Structure formats: C-alpha cells, structure tokens
C-alpha cells in the first residue's frame, strides 16, 4: 500500500471556550447570534486530524481536510495545513447556510466523490455548536462504507483498521476493512501544538475552493434546520461564601452551613 489517503471532515464553529456572554439569541429571526465569538475548528474534528496525522506518520500518505459552510474562514481552517495536513478543500456556498445534518452529510458526500479515492474518513463525534453527532454516521451510509463511532485509538494494518471505541460499560475493540469512516471522541487527545512559525509558512500553501455547482449539488434539494423557539436558560443560585481566617475556621463554617442546608431540605435525615 502506498500510504494512506485520509479525508478529515472539519467543521467551523463559534469558539466553545469563549465567554458565553457573547452568545445571544434572536427570537424573531430564530437565530443564535455568535458574532462576538471567534470562529475555530470544532475541537473534536481537530482530534480527528490528530488521529490522521499519527496514522500518516506511521504509514505515510496524504491528508485532505474538507470543510463545508456558507461563511468559512480560510485563515482559521489553514491551521490544519500548519498542523501537517497536505490539502485543504473549502466547499463554500450561500445555499449551505443553516442546513440540517442530512443535507450537510449529502454535500460532504458529493465533495468526497470529487476528491476521489480514500482509505479513511475521520471526523469528530459531534459539533460543539449543535451537538448532533449525526453527520459522520449519515455520511458513511451515503457513501456505503462501514462506520465506527467514538474512537479513542485507531490502528491500520493490511488494509484493515482496528478501533478501540468507547462503549456502554467500557471499551470495545472492533475491526473493519478499508475504506471506512470513523468518528473520534475527546479521549483520543487534542491536536498537537501548532507553532506560530508553522502557521506563517502555511500561509503560502494553496487552498482549494469549491462551490455547490463545482460538486454538482442542486441547492433546491437541500433542507434547512427549522427552529421555532430559542432561549438562554437562566441559571442563578444564591451563593453563600464561607469566610474564615484559617483553613480550619473555613472548614468548620462550611460544615455548619452544609448541615444547616441539609436540615432544611431533608429534616431528620441528615446531620443529626
């Protein structure tokens, strides 16, 4: 085998680690407003890229990162090239705005057909925005290849891939033939550190831009996500801060306060 051809599907999402005060909802337009949140690569898709990098370090090959959206940021997604991906394909079109999961998977499948041959498709288990966990598994169905979810370890040998995955009561080790699709969970580990120098030199690497037309997608068959209500839940409790001069004093006051609260909620059950 002449190295592995790996496609990593990566989604651009509003930074899930950014202050949540920047997140707003528009209840008339039915939109989540993320203007104040910087776009980043979905962290779990970054983990999928790390998996791809580790595999090509062993087996050689080529990594193509594929992203679909209506407003993609090339500088943000270029990080994947800086980390070691060989090719970045951005499929961008106004008609990809707010698509539902099935339609996104469909667009990805059309882009993958255009990319051509592959051994593995890797992606994160879910997006940090809508937490759907659907696109990878639907994509595999559309492509007619086996899919394994929640991988924490991936090994390839002799045209087969062995995956250690998270299951109900522990781990499962499963095996399937290539080509296959694998969704990666956070236990895989984070993407390697990308230095400023690498980011700079990745600036000259070319990016491939495609539109819906380029991959033969008819916009009229795409379906959008329909939202009928949005709100930011309030979560505020009245917090009593425990004071004290020494750790001992703090501890004494804490235990007393705790007993007080337990007695209010569960009279006669605790703290007698």
């Amino acid at each position, binding site marked *: 085998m002449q190295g592995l051809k790996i496609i990593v599907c990566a989604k651009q999402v509003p930074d899930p680690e950014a202050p949540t005060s920047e997140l707003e909802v528009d209840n008339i337009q039915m939109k989540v407003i993320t203007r104040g949140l910087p776009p980043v690569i979905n962290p779990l898709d970054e983990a999928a890229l790390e998996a791809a990098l580790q595999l090509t370090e062993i087996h050689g090959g080529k990594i193509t990162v594929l992203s679909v959206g209506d407003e993609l940021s090339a500088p943000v997604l270029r990080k994947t090239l800086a980390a070691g991906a060989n090719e970045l394909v951005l499929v961008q079109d106004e008609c990809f705005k707010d698509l539902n999961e099935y339609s996104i998977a469909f667009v990805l499948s059309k882009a993958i057909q255009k990319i051509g041959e592959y051994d593995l498709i890797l992606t994160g288990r879910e997006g940090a925005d809508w*937490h759907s966990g659907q696109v990878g598994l639907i994509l595999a169905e559309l492509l007619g290849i086996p899919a394994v979810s929640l991988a924490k370890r991936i090994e390839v040998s002799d045209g087969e891939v062995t995956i250690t995955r998270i299951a109900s009561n522990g781990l499962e080790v499963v095996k399937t033939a290539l080509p296959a699709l694998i969704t990666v969970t956070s236990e895989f580990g984070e993407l390697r550190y990308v230095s400023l120098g690498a980011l700079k030199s990745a600036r000259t690497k070319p990016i491939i831009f495609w539109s819906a037309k380029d991959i033969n997608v008819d916009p009229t068959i795409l379906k959008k996500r329909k939202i009928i209500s949005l709100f930011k839940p309030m979560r505020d409790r009245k*917090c009593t801060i*425990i004071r004290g001069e020494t*750790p001992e004093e703090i501890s004494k006051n804490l235990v007393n306060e705790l007993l007080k609260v337990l007695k209010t909620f569960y009279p006669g059950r605790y703290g007698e």
Partner: protein
Amino acid sequence: MKEVLVLIEVDDETGNISSASLELLEIGRRLSYETGNTLSAVIVGYNLQELSAEVAKYASKVYIIDNPALNEFNPEAYAHVLEKICKQISPSHVLLSHTYKGADIAPRLAAKLKVPLTTDCIELGVNKETGLLERKKQVFGGNVIATLICEGEPQLVTVRPKTSSRIKETLITPGEIIHLNFEIDRSCFRIKLLERIAEEVIRLEDADVIIAGGRGLGGPEGFKELEKLKDVLSKVFKMVEVGASRPPVDKGWIPSTRQIGISGKKVSPILYIAVGISGATQHIVGMEGSRIIVAINSDPKAPIFSVSDIGVLADYREVLPSIIKELEGLLCKD
C-alpha cells in the same frame, strides 16, 4: 391507526428493560395519546421471550426481531432491521434513547429512511397546527435551548435519559406480540467485535453525593484527595462517587466514565461538591439538577459560584484536609 414506535434497550446487567426505555415508553405513551396513535415497541436481539412479555404490559404491539445473529449489539444490523420494520408498518414516530446504542443507531436509520433526526432531546411536544414533533434540545454547550421541528415521516428522535418519569400505567389486556423474521443482510456484519474491555461500572446517575474535580486539581493526585473526602462522606450518605469535568478526562487523569457534562453524564445528587472546577456551561449542564451545590475554587470570578449554594474561595489543597478532619471529628462524636 398509525403507531408510535419505541426501541427497547436491555439493561446489560439485569437483562430487564433498561430504565431509559421505561422512560421512553412513558414519552411514547403520552405522544400516542396526544396524537391519537397506538403505542408500539420493538425489541431487537436474541432470546427475547421473557422481555417481550414484560414490554407487552405497556405497549399495544410488541415487535420482536429475535435472531442469534443479533445477540451482540451491532449498530449496522440494528439500523438495518429497524429500517425494515419502518418500511413495513410506516410508524408516525420512532423514538430511541440517547444512549451509547441509540445514538449509534439513529443517524444510520435516519440516512436509510431519508428523514431528519433530532438527537438528545430533553422534551418533546406535539405542534397543534401541524402535528409535527417539537424537539427541545440543549445547544451551544447548553448555553441555548432550541426547539426544532422537522418535516417527514416517521418523526425520528433520540431522547436524553432521565428527562421523563418511567411508564407505570399497564394495559388491561397485554399487547400483541408480533415476531418478525427478517433476513439480515450480510453487509451488516462488516464490523467485527474483537474484544470487550470492561471497566468498572460507575452509576454516577444514582449517587447521593458526587465529589467532582476539575482542571484546578492540577493532576491525577488531586483525585486521591477527593477519594479521602469520599471515604468520610460515605459514613453518612448511601452512595458517594467521584466525578470530573472534561479537562481531567482529556488529560487522562481519570477515565471518561466519570465525566459529567454535556458530553458525559447528567447527574442530580443530593449534594454536589465541585473542586477546582471553573464551571464552563458544558459542565454545568450535567450537574445543575443537584439539590445542593458546593464549590471550592480559588478564583473568585469562576462561574461555578453563580450556580452554587455554598462557595469556598480557597485552594483546595489548603482547605480539603481540614474539611475532612472537621467531618471526621463530627462523625466520631456520634
């Protein structure tokens, strides 16, 4: 009459209907009542006689897909047989639990049926005008609650466990048990199970007290300190467990089975003690249902304090030993 179809999962430990499935049956019962449809259930696996009789207490029709080839859980084969049953009975709704199994089957089934799917719903309603399911779910790390609607039939969702009570109402006459002898396509067995590595089963969801550690613990040793607190509290409370937010799991300090939050477990103990947890929304979503929340954190700006009842503004290394001592003193007096 159209059917609301519920996928029944088996509790691996007891062999009975899983508690998530009993909750799903209750949701299905309510939906079938609101839409004027029948409640049906489907069980996939092997040796399902006893289980089907149990399910028939609640559902008017119980479809059994009993096949030795389905003895081991296999999401490809499960999605395949569910597709077949959907094509045969054309249900109005198909409900799965958002468990490891349900979450692995549902997107495959959605692709096969070409219908939209909403995963991890926390509440379902019926739209009065359209009859479509209103699907409420937490998005953007739990910072936003969205209600979605989707066209198409069946209306397909996965539902988060512990968001409903379990079904209690039994039928006067048990439901009809229908055996379906589907041929299972060989293409469903492309993935081979080589090994199952069992990990200690931790039922964080059932704990009375949870002591959870975060990034602020500084390393795996921090969890040893939490274990000491657990030992003391175990003298008073029935079930005390140690949990974690996401960073310690990502860093490999503690296994993911103890993770609490949007991508981990959702818990609601009597007492939740958050140690060195800053309180990212994705963690809060998993523990905000706790009765009493205590936060120990040295950062006065940590958002965890705004969801806590009691706060201790200190480095846990300084206060935890004396808290343990204080509790020991108190408990030994009795």
